[in-house]
């Protein structure tokens, strides 16, 4: 679990160019971390690749915070 959280946070830091300290679980990608709508698509793509999962569009729309991403991946990841 914590491993998934760490990997998710690392991707967010790398992709959005934000400080690790900002990437809290309740941080919203768009409102708090300065992502635009394309960034959110790219983050989902990066999560899919990192965790070898598929995130369907309707699930992706609900992933708005770092915690949402960790939660979805934790319940869907195989590894």
């Amino acid at each position, binding site marked *: 679990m914590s491993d998934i959280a760490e990997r998710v946070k690392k991707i967010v830091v790398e992709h959005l160019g934000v400080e690790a300290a900002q990437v809290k679980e309740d941080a919203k990608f768009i409102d708090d971390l300065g992502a*635009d709508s*394309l960034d959110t*698509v*790219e983050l989902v*793509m990066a999560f899919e690749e990192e965790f070898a999962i598929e995130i369907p569009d309707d699930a992706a729309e609900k992933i708005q915070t770092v915690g949402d991403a960790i939660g979805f991946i934790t319940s869907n990841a195989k590894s």
Partner: protein
Amino acid sequence: MFDLNGKTALVTGASGGIGGAIARALHRQGATVTLSGTRAEALDQLKVSLGERAHVVAARMDDAADIDRLAKEAEAAMGKLDILVNNAGITRDNISMRMKDEEWEKVLQVNLTGTFRLTRAVMRGMMKRRFGRVVSITSIVGVTGNPGQANYAAAKAGLIGMSKSLAQELASRGITVNCVAPGFIATPMTDGLTDDQKKGILARVPADRLGTPDEIAAGVVYLASEEAAYVTGQTLHINGGMAMI
């Protein structure tokens, strides 16, 4: 200039006059090309004449599953996709009073919806690599209109609006989205016109001749190049001065 070595391109409608010229021009600049269309035999002939760096993936643009397959197979064959040329298109001409729903829908489906689906399907890879060139072949009639072509003109105008929207969505990712709008071009399609019809057309063309497929292909090569990185959301009109807009 306009070196495309190391670049990969997918050209739809490559069995046609303009599509074939575009594929040959991109290939001549060094690109690896995947030729798509519905006439497998013509595509295979073109592939043979190009020699190396050429692939064929036949597909129907009115079939959503086939379009997704085309995107996947083209990327698999070439390893990545840098340049998409949406050239496939059909006509079902009729004056509007007589135009059937099927004629309207078929043209919109192939020329506009199919183009959108294919572009959407290849966007992901382009976004990841921060590079992409999408060039859609629209038409002068998409801007000026043409009697008997309400369906075709609507689809071609639609491509221009679609491209401008995609251009704004994707510009920050190094992806440009443009259109080339041919006027009257000498192809097997225009060979079928009578001399009187041709005379009528040329009366409206200051250059006093039909254009050639190579003249359209040159515009596509430019928009596909690294040099055109700052050109997006535009329509390049290649029409001998027939309409100046």
